[in-house]
């Protein structure tokens, strides 16, 4: 018997998944793919990321070469125009004909454009494909304003895209509410409030009667209520319509609202033709999400095998971020189930709305809506999908978590059948199996199960499952800081605090073994400094310090050091600038403005450091702690002092904060930023602690990070006066010192903190652990004991002895070699032998 010929029409996300799934079976088939678009399948779900800078190529899910290597024939950019069921062939626009034994329709859908007069004018566009993106970008060039017709999920995403393109963006929605399909009234209202806060203009309850030429902008939309809106471009996003014309023409049955009718086996009314994805309809429902499409594709493939899987519908819950606003919708969000009851919680101050729908007898979760904070999404989804019995007071899920809140559903409580990754249909059981078979990292889990490689929404839960399974297997997740102390950093902190130990030796004797190392010594040195803040170069502490702390400078690649004096808030007088210049000149130091708004002088030798610092201290400088795990800088913008937009004195506040926290030893370095208005020129939201002035007080942001893995800071509290602000920061920092891991920036710390931001707020703002005054007291000790370590060192002859290359000779390191570049000296590379300068002492 000759091979079965399978022809797949449409190469979108679902069509592609069908092909991949089929190719992975051992069926002996001949596959032909006919794609209407000019490119092979790509990730439509992440289309909008192209507006954030992603390249269209990065979205691609496969390549022509890959198909070729699987032995698949594929043609792109040549849509199918007819199905001939008698001859079992399809014909394309270019006149090609293909014979099939089984035909798979995966033609997806297109953006619906309402029949408004003028809808075909230039600059009236849709948003569905990569080509559409190009057109929207081209149309937006050089103009100011754009309108999206449709306030559903895709419409809002499109409004975001227009904003990213720099347009003033408007959403015109016919219905009275946004995202009416997924959200209830309260959720929809909150979403609107938040989105308007981001500068998107929302017009609901507006029916467009015609589109005509505009006066000030290219186009003008006239509404049925007599009002109008001018705009430079319009993107229609008023819903989707399945591409079912081919099927209609071929006499297949289509649904009332369009879509090729299928049965549980994804078969159409012709048993040799299947339909999958957004072009198909089951029970008059079109599944407009990718996960159900994938399930259909798998079901359709299985019909060719022994084991026949059916598709009986799918869960349409979604969690997403629209314009940075978190939105989640679970199950029966509108409470349409009979007897359903609803709990809701709305906090207009924090702009959070949550509601849950439960069964008549209050025991099962039916649905939920989350706007502004979706942290409970995973938990709620699992309760709904697995019909887990609700706790006694289900409202605890949505009430702000203070004490006694419902615990997040631990991975352990889930049944093995619980679907963890809905994109790839990976259950908890699948994950556990993978762990048992040796996948012990998230990387391995992804490779083996594909979990978390789609939309990524399941990553946190998948990791929890992995960790808990690892624990069960006895694969110990060892958190000891090193071989010398069988303790975590947090335990060491508790020991120091409770036993008032003041030296490393005592610590090692009572709680450790061996001689210590480059991990435990600085860690314990830092903890001791955080609580007792003694001079770091005291005899008993000196050996604990990294070289940078011992010599109060950062060691450079050739063993010389950098000199970074503190420039609070980045503000500096001309006199001080001149001194820096003079010192740099005298010692021939390479000079650079740092990323932290101060000046770094590089290339100082050990013996030069004390003289350099003497001069700087005489001129009023202090050490900048560029070497310590401690406060680096408080970056500021010029603020109300000069800036025409400044609403408060950001420089003044930055200086106060920098002076307050300078010298504080922390688990890792930390940085502050203060901006004088929302334009945020100090980039405070990328700092561990960021403060932004508003008309009504300071807004405090926490746990931002630049560096290796940037993290946007979270808004922690708003409209604070300076006193409250300082109180919160005191508590925040001391709590960080108490509980963070070594070398853990605040960003990573927060991400690992059980209970997350809400918990942190409860501890710092509501003082839920009743340790507020203790934390403030610990900070007070630090502030009281502050000293400029360079000043103390210069006054200490014993310490100064160490600032020589040799202890037994005045000679200096004869291996130092430099060359001049752009007018300054820098270390010579090994291959450089010409014009090398050697320093003579």
């Amino acid at each position, binding site marked *: 018997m000759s091979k079965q010929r399978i022809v797949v029409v449409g190469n979108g996300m679902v069509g592609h998944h069908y092909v991949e799934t089929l190719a992975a079976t051992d069926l002996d088939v001949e596959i032909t793919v006919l794609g209407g678009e000019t490119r092979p399948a790509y990730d439509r779900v992440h289309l909008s990321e192209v507006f954030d800078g992603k390249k269209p190529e990065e979205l691609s899910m496969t390549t022509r070469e890959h198909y070729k290597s699987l032995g698949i024939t594929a043609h792109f950019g040549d849509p199918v125009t007819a199905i001939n069921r008698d001859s079992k062939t399809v014909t394309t626009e270019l006149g090609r004909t293909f014979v099939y034994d089984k035909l798979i329709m995966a033609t997806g859908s297109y953006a619906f454009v309402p029949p408004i007069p003028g809808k075909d004018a230039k600059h009236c566009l849709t948003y569905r494909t990569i080509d559409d993106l190009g057109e929207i970008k081209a149309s937006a060039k050089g103009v100011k304003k754009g309108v999206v017709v449709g306030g559903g999920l895709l419409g809002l995403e499109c409004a975001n895209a227009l904003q990213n393109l720099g347009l003033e963006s408007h959403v015109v929605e016919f219905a009275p509410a946004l995202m009416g399909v997924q959200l209830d009234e309260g959720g929809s209202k909150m979403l609107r409030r938040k989105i308007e806060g981001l500068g998107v203009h929302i017009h609901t309850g507006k029916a467009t009667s015609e589109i005509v030429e505009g006066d000030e902008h290219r186009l003008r939309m006239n509404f049925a209520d007599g009002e109008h809106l001018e705009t430079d471009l319009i993107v229609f996003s008023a819903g989707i319509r399945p591409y079912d014309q081919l099927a209609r023409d071929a006499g297949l049955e289509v649904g009332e609202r369009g879509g090729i009718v299928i049965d549980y086996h994804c078969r159409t009314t012709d048993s040799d033709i299947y339909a999958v994805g957004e072009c198909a309809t089951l029970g008059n429902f079109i599944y407009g999400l990718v996960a159900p499409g994938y399930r259909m594709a798998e079901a359709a493939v299985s019909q060719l095998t022994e084991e026949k899987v059916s598709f009986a519908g799918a869960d349409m819950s979604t969690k997403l971020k629209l314009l940075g606003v978190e939105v989640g919708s679970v199950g029966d969000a509108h409470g349409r189930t009979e007897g359903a009851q609803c709990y809701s919680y709305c906090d207009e101050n924090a702009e959070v709305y949550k509601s849950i729908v439960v069964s008549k007898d209050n025991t099962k979760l039916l649905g939920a809506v989350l706007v502004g904070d979706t942290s409970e999404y995973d938990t709620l989804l699992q309760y709904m999908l697995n019909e887990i019995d609700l706790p006694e007071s289900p409202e605890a899920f949505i009430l702000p978590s203070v004490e006694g809140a419902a615990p997040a559903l631990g991975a352990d409580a889930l049944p093995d059948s619980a679907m963890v990754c809905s994109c790839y249909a990976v259950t908890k059981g699948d994950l556990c199996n993978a762990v048992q078979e040796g996948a012990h990292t998230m990387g391995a889990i992804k490779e083996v199960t594909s979990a978390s490689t789609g939309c990524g929404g399941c990553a946190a839960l998948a990791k929890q499952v992995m960790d808990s399974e690892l624990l069960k297997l006895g694969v110990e997740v060892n958190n000891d800081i090193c*071989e*010398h102390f069988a303790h975590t950093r947090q335990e060491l902190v508790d020991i120091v605090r409770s036993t008032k130990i003041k030296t490393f*030796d005592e610590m*090692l004797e009572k709680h450790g073994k*061996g*001689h*210590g*190392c*480059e991990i*435990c*010594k*600085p860690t314990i040195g830092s903890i001791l400094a955080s609580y007792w803040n003694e001079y770091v170069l005291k*005899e008993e502490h*000196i*050996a*604990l*310090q*990294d*070289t*940078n702390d*011992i*010599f109060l400078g950062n*060691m450079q*690649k*050739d*063993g010389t050091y950098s000199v970074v004096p503190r420039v609070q808030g980045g503000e500096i007088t001309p006199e001080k600038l001149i001194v820096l210049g003079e010192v740099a000149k005298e010692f021939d130091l390479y000079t650079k403005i740092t990323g932290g708004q101060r000046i770094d002088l590089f290339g100082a030798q050990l013996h030069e450091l004390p003289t350099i610092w003497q001069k700087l201290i005489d001129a009023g400088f202090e050490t900048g702690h560029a070497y310590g795990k401690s406060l680096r800088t408080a970056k500021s913008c010029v603020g109300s002092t000069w800036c025409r937009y400044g609403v408060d004195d950001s420089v003044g506040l930055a200086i106060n904060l920098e002076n307050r926290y300078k010298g504080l030893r922390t688990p890792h370095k930390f940085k502050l930023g203060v901006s004088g208005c929302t334009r945020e020129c100090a980039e405070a939201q990328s700092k561990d602690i960021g403060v932004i002035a508003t008309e009504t007080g300071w807004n405090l942001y926490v746990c931002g990070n630049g560096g290796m893995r940037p993290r946007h800071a979270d808004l922690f509290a708003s409209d604070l006066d300076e006193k409250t602000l300082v109180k919160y920061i005191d508590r925040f920092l001391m709590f960080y010192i108490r509980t963070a891991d070594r070398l853990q920036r605040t960003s990573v710390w927060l991400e690992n903190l059980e209970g997350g931001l809400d918990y942190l707020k409860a501890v710092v703002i509501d003082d839920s652990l009743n340790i507020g005054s203790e934390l403030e007291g610990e900070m007070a000790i630090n502030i009281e004991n502050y000293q400029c370590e360079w000043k103390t060192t210069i006054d200490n002859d014993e310490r100064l*002895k*160490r600032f020589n*290359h*040799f*202890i*037994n*000779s005045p*000679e200096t*390191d004869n*291996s130092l070699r430099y060359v001049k570049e752009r007018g300054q000296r820098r270390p010579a590379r*090994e291959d450089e032998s010409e014009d090398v300068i050697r320093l003579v002492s």
Partner: protein
Amino acid sequence: MIEDVIVDDWVKVCETSDLIPGTGVAVALGKEQVAVFKLRKDEAVYAISNYDPIGKANVLSRGITGSVGDKIVVSSPLYKQHFDLKTGECLEDEDASVKTYAVRVHEGGIQLQYNS
């Protein structure tokens, strides 16, 4: 160069009190640079070359001392590799091992042996 006090071929390089327990100092021994360490717990003294062959700079005396298993080590301040203070062996990269020197505490001073 300070006057070398030669006793046999042992050279006094510094006072014992110059060495703070747990830290190192660099000393000049003729043309060579030597890193001398005193451990904290047992007060033993060690000497190895001051040159870090991986970071390619004379910095080993400025590293943190400690132990890895029962080996006594210093960790380079540049890229943190460990050097065994007794044998000079680099624990991360055998080929990067460094020279060791005979060292002793004698009459209140630290002495190194020439040509050791």
